[in-house]
């Protein structure tokens, strides 16, 4: 059985929220001018802060963090090297976003007198939003590749519970789920109701997919002795049931009722939902490391 790996839990979950926010901003920005400038700035600052925290947390996992830069040395075959490279590139792309956010002038308030907006202003704004969209796109793609590389580190032939598509799928679903919810929290006063609804639908989709894939994943685990050990550990752990309650069942109930009753604007509900989902994902990640059982020598010693 694995250990309670706090640095890795924090690194992966915080990093995935950070990149999830950028992906959601990019998605909201797909129709130019629909992303509020204030939300863009807040999203960039929060995702940058989380990315820095995630990278710092990852250092605590190392025996010798002072020489962590060496981890870039084996790009040819080590997914850990590739992950570090992609996260560093994501951070560079984020610096560009930060720079863009500092230069971004606020969008015209809804209903502004069209006659007061000059052609030059329109052209400048078009250029700004084009750069913003490109910057968000590049950061998102690099970040998602970084997350896929993080997941690939765990695809080890020795660990049947990880040696499948599960880690990549679950890491990307966490990115979508928590990215959408944290963006919703940041933009609770700035987003249009339709945008809020879209983010809630995205969260619902990710939660349902996570639950369904987990059921399939769990049934696959029993195929090997080590996988069955992981599954038994999960099912007998109170943490797993807390994860199921906080990360799947409670969010599903809240999401369905919010979408059904058009309560997309209720701040308390959004905050409760996000808190449940973050706790659920943190517990899920802790269990991911705790339940890993490797193929090993079973002779006596």
């Amino acid at each position, binding site marked *: 059985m694995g250990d309670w790996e706090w640095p890795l839990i924090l690194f992966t979950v915080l990093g995935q929220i950070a990149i999830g926010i950028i992906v959601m901003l990019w998605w909201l920005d797909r129709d130019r001018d629909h992303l509020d400038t204030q939300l863009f700035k807040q999203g960039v600052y929060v995702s940058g802060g989380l990315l820095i925290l995630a990278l710092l947390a990852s250092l605590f996992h190392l*025996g010798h963090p002072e*020489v962590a830069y060496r981890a870039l040395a084996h790009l040819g075959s080590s997914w850990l090297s590739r992950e570090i490279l992609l996260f560093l590139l994501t951070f560079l792309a984020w610096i560009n976003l930060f720079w863009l956010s500092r230069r971004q002038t606020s969008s015209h308030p809804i209903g502004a007198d069209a006659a007061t907006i000059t052609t030059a202003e329109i052209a400048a704004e078009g250029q700004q939003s084009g750069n913003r969209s490109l910057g968000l796109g590049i950061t998102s793609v690099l970040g998602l590749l970084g997350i896929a590389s993080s997941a690939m580190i765990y695809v080890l032939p020795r660990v049947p519970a990880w040696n499948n598509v599960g880690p990549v799928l679950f890491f990307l679903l966490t990115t979508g789920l928590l990215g959408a919810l944290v963006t919703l929290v940041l933009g609770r006063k700035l987003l249009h109701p339709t945008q809020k609804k879209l983010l809630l639908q995205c969260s619902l989709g990710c939660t349902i997919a996570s639950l369904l894939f987990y059921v399939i994943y769990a049934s696959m685990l029993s195929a090997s002795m080590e996988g069955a050990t992981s599954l038994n550990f999960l099912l007998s752990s109170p943490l797993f049931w807390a994860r199921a309650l906080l990360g799947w069942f409670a969010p599903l109930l809240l999401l369905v009722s919010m979408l059904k009753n058009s309560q997309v604007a209720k701040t308390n509900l959004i905050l409760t939902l996000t808190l449940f989902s973050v706790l659920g994902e943190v517990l899920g990640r802790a269990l991911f490391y705790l339940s890993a059982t490797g193929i090993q020598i079973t002779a006596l010693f």
Partner: protein
Amino acid sequence: MSKQLGFLHNSEKCVGCRGCEMACKNEYQIDAAPQWRKVFQLHEEDFSLPTRMFFSMACNHCAHPECLRVCPVEAYTKRDDGIVVHDPNRCIGCRLCTMACPYDRPQINSAKKKVEKCNLCYQRIDNGEQPACVAACIPGALELVEINDILDQKTGVLKTLPGLPSPKLTTPSIRFIGPKQGKQIRRD
């Protein structure tokens, strides 16, 4: 790679004295916890023999070493003679190799916060000597051999034993001579 060196362990000769473990510790003055070499006892039910059988295992200098594949700092290299060498000076203590090796042979030294493992005494081999464990094995149960088809075609040479991970995972460079079906003395 011109050849692949490895170990041949003969369970018929091994008496489980752990002399190889001690010789390894002595040679490298290894701290208490990491065990580069370890003697295991086969489960009786695995071999259906009413007797105690042992095998001794260190790093298997695999043909497809997972430790080398996953290590982000290239602390592992494979020499021309197939020995997988770990350089602790490069190690940053990420422990990924300890998760990847099915034999649990790279081990963390919690005082140094780095991983260590058997390097098949390559400096002794380069001087024409036997590895410390092989030299110390009194009944001659542990041998340094070249892993090749000639060895694999010999009668009684096994690629694995019950209780070991499938050799398909990393193609380990170790072979075994299993315990022979002995005479069972029955008193009824």
